[in-house]
């Protein structure tokens, strides 16, 4: 019986082989690098050196959490309005939302920088001298701009699945529109919100391109730090930072998924 059950799943064998070799093994190697020095001897120096990066980590967390919150505040009403429009309009809005996503992130970010820069398009057009690039606000704006669709799409998928009769039922039972929104619609779209939050938070906290371009070289985020270790060849420290970041992110995703158990609320449209 056991043999038969093994045979049934033989189709998954190439994938399991692939996953062990190219997913699990590389992560183990990251772990090995994190706990060894440049000569390959066991060492805790890299882990101890992490304390130097605590302020950078807090800054990355601060910026990405603000960006995620802004995305949620802007994105929820947007997703809701789209979900409530006619099917034809819905299609067009979703297409309009996806189109920037299909444009490479590097190009979008660069274009924002060219607009907001000190001698950029906005300042030449208005003949002003706003200093925007190089501030925290510019980095947050870049994150929100680049990742907003990732927030809107899962929420939209979730909200558009909510039965229209929910509204009627809630108002029949005496709920005001605001209360219906807070007590019925919002909780029902929780799984969309959670996948939206993860899909914005993870790339924001680990970005290095946005902070390089829109931070104007004045900010270093955790992604920049890893990238710098990679460029300068300090791979052991880079591996240690990556390891810690991965563990933190996987833990928070697992915790968040506990809240929306059993519902795979549209990871991607």
């Amino acid at each position, binding site marked *: 019986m056991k043999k038969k059950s093994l045979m049934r799943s033989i189709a998954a064998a190439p994938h399991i082989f692939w996953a062990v070799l190219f997913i699990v093994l590389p992560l183990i190697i990251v772990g090995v690098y994190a706990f060894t020095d440049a000569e390959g001897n066991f060492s805790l120096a890299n882990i101890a050196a992490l304390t130097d990066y605590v302020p950078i980590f807090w800054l990355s967390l601060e910026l990405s959490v603000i960006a995620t919150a802004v995305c949620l505040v802007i994105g929820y009403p947007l997703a809701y309005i789209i979900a409530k429009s006619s099917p034809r309009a819905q299609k067009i809005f979703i297409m309009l939302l996806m189109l920037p996503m*299909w444009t490479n992130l590097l190009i979008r970010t*660069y274009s924002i920088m060219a607009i907001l820069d000190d001698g950029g398009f906005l300042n030449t057009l208005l003949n002003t001298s706003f200093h925007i690039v190089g501030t925290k606000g510019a980095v947050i704006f870049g994150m929100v701009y680049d990742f907003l669709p990732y927030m809107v799409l899962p929420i939209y998928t979730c909200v558009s699945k909510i039965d229209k009769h929910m509204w009627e039922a809630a108002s029949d039972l005496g709920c005001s529109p605001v209360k219906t929104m807070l007590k019925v619609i919002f909780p029902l779209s929780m799984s969309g919100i959670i996948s939206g939050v993860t899909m914005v938070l993870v790339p924001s906290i680990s970005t290095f391109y946005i902070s390089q371009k829109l931070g104007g070289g004045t900010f270093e985020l955790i992604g920049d730090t890893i990238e710098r270790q990679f460029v300068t060849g300090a791979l052991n420290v880079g591996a240690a930072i990556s390891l810690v970041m991965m563990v933190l992110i996987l833990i928070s995703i697992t915790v968040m998924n506990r809240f929306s158990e059993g519902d795979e609320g549209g990871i991607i449209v």
Partner: protein
Amino acid sequence: MKYASRIYLCLIFSVLYIPIFTLILFSFNVENSTAEFAGFSLRWYIELFNSPETFTALRNTLLLAVLSALLSTVIGTAAAEGIYKMRSRFIKGAITSVTNIPMMNPDIVTGMSMMLFFAAVMGIFKISDYNEIGFAAMLIAHTTFCLPYVILSVLPRINELGDSLSEAALDLGCTPVSAFFRVKLPNIMPGVISGMVMAFTLSLDDFVISYFVGPTNFQTLPLLIYSMTKKKVTPDMYALSTIIIVSVFILLIISNIRSGKRADENKRKRGAVK
């Protein structure tokens, strides 16, 4: 309320599109500037088409995207079938969690881990020049981060389809393999196709992982764009982006019209049955 929501939509979409429209505008700039528009010209497009570097990068990007989409679709579809048939919930859960790691992990961590892995491979097989395994490394890396998306798009279809059709095929004398190819696969095809399309676009768009894994002799478009934005950018990069945006836009419109037509046809068919 209706007006308020319309204004809101307009506002958000204009902010989303301002950078894209300025980019298109400046791709036609006569001067070498991305801040001051001096006049209309096609200068940067001509320069772009005369640069062999761009064409090599474009060819590399497409080659890599096609190969990694095909590879991840074959492995991923087989994996979805295998996972579906698994009895043990524990093994099922373990395999899906491991598969999803590249999807949940920040790209920078996946990129770093892949790079260290290939460095180790070079050490073991005594390869001194990374360019020798560079293309294989890129293909493996791209296939790996595409796999979870393929499985995620195929597995629900297989779950939905259930076993009855394949069992009927087996009863009628199909071997398990031909039952899969002749009965199951055609039925789950929409999931397989959408998984493949997603893998293709993910590979096309990837910068971070390619940045860590990419060898010097195999440059993709995002890597080229990155190296171009390191210096002060000339509008030829804008010209390149404009071409990409316009082609994506046309593709989206075509696919929308086609799916609209299909929906109409289905409606008509259903009407005829009634």
